[in-house]
């Protein structure tokens, strides 16, 4: 797996406001989470793919819902932070 670490313009997916769109540019390091990272890859989170943060769960502002391709997934913000995104704009 390519591990592109925090280049200055990329942001963590979990930190983005609802409505933000971006392109996945890399993934954080996840020693104890390799399995989960691969699962993210499998369901659609790969470098170059576009994502959009749709919203946050009402209680505790966590997890968040994210659109990738034609699917919407819920991820906890902590876990979503493994995904690094280049922000492209707001909708």
């Amino acid at each position, binding site marked *: *797996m390519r591990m592109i670490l925090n280049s200055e313009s990329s942001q963590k997916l979990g930190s983005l406001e609802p409505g933000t769109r971006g392109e996945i540019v890399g993934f954080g390091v996840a020693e*104890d*989470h390799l*399995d*989960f*990272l*691969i*699962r*993210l*890859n*499998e*369901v*659609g989170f*790969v470098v170059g793919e576009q994502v959009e943060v*749709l*919203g946050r*769960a*009402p*209680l*505790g*502002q*966590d*997890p968040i*819902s994210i659109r990738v*391709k*034609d*699917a*919407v*997934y*819920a*991820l*906890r913000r*902590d*876990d979503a932070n493994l995904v690094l995104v280049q922000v492209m704009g707001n909708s």
Partner: protein
Amino acid sequence: MKSRIALVGTPNAGKTALFNALTHSHQRVANYSGVTVESAEADFFLPGGDALSLVDLPGAYSLRPYTEDENVLADALKGTSFAGMILVVDATQPERAIRFLLEVLDSTDSPAVIALNMSDLAEKRGFEFDMVQFAALMGVPVIPTAATRKKGLPELLGALEISLKNQKRRRSAFFPAPAESVPATRVSERVLEFYKRADQLLKRIMVRKGFPDERSRKIDRVILHPVAGPLILILVLGIVFQLMFNLAQFPMDLIDTGFSWLQGLVQNSGLSVGVKSFLSDGVIAGVGGTLVFLPQILILYALILFLEDFGFMSRAVFMLDHLMGKVGLHGRSFLPLLSSYACNVPGIMSARTIESKADRVITTLIIPLTTCSARIPVYGLLISAFIPNTEVFLGLKLQGLVMLGLYATGIFFAFLMGGIFKRFLFQGRRPPLLIELPSYKRPSMRSLLRGILYRIKLFSKRVGTVILSVTVVIWFLLSYPQDGGAVASGIEHSYAAQIGQWIEPLLRPIGFDWRIAMALIPTFAAREVMVGTLSTVYSIEGGAAVSDVEKLSMILKQEWSVATGMSLLVWFIFAPMCVSTLATARRELKSTRYMILMLVYLFALAYLGSYLAYRAFS
């Protein structure tokens, strides 16, 4: 044996819907990732007339198993148990579905056909597929289907029939050689290879002409709204429980009346006293006592199925995950816990969809603390006997409040114990959450009906086997040995009484006498039998039939102290009085140790709680 065909696809692709449409059996369809907890199987026919058997396997996002559910699929594809597969592709999620398709077709030479399902929705969204090209590149026939509308089914079966003529599939240019297993370090590279291949493939077979579906997004704006969302969730849960109790009342009364009538028929017949007692006190009382809350179970299931099918359940998980995290649970524990209110057994089985072992174990361990419907008759009996129905305020009655309190105590301790298990058994970081929020769909009444019929079948089977045999054994233990042929004589000399007297010293500190001890034994087979056993005990002892719950509650009021009543009430919140639950937990967790832990901690809570209740009220 008939050859078996597997339904293979990603979660929510419509496998269960297709299963229901192709076979004439009862299996639920639901709009929730991984709801197929046990693979269902049923017969179907090819156009040529051959009978085959179709298996609805759990869905997966890849063959690298990540959840227990996905293990089932990966294992199934490895073996030679299937003569062929129907690959179910969700046409509204082409990229993801095709990647999975490539992985499956790489891994096996088994004959296959592709059902390009949800073609109705894909068409609406402007996805256009070139079927001829698709089939040519995959080397497998491709048939567009819409399972819930029964579209494309004869064509699918026709294609399957032709494919099955060869035992092995001919690999197309897209599948050069069988895939060899890949070392762990290269797994993610392999995932990316699938992306490349799927992209190449899709470019040649599909164009997108429309815009993404906005409808689900609009519904989510309401259902997941910061303020309205939680309120809707509470409202929905409130309505679910209201309906479960209120709608069920009428059919329950009907069933009750029916069985009382049967008992009367037996009593007035010319049969001998022994046979009468066997039929009336044994068979009819036992079976009737259990069948009575079938309506409640069915109503709860129907509502859960409806909400799942609509797409609400995964939203509930999304909203509750944070809260559940506070007590050491996973958002996904929500569905297993909710189903457990009908019956703990299917609740435990649906915990399979939880990815992490820790969360699955904890959820399973605490499920027996949810108030399954088998406890309701016991609660009802004890409340009517020992709680005065005074008005507390604003028309709220004490009896109703106590019932609510019992439910609340159960779930409170479930969460408390969840937190404790998390802290002491499974330390470390919270395992990640990843769930799909599928697009909302109009619930299909047909599959709802089938789901209910399926439940009735399962339940009747249980009543006809386990419950019936237990009641018969209990009746025997209560009625024998006989002296001089008079059944009514001396219940305190019966085998059951001897067992009861033998364990009485153990239960005396919590206020149970040998009669209660005796009545508790059969509850291990089914809690609800308690009411029936107590009726039988007091019928035989008193020499007159205690035919309904009101009479029984009058007797209890005279015979027991309030402290004993309270103690027994508390006992039923906690005690692990259900062999099926324990056996299911052992099987699902593949661990005897966890089952013993469940048994021990629940008994400890029950004993302690009952002791305190007994002390407090004496």
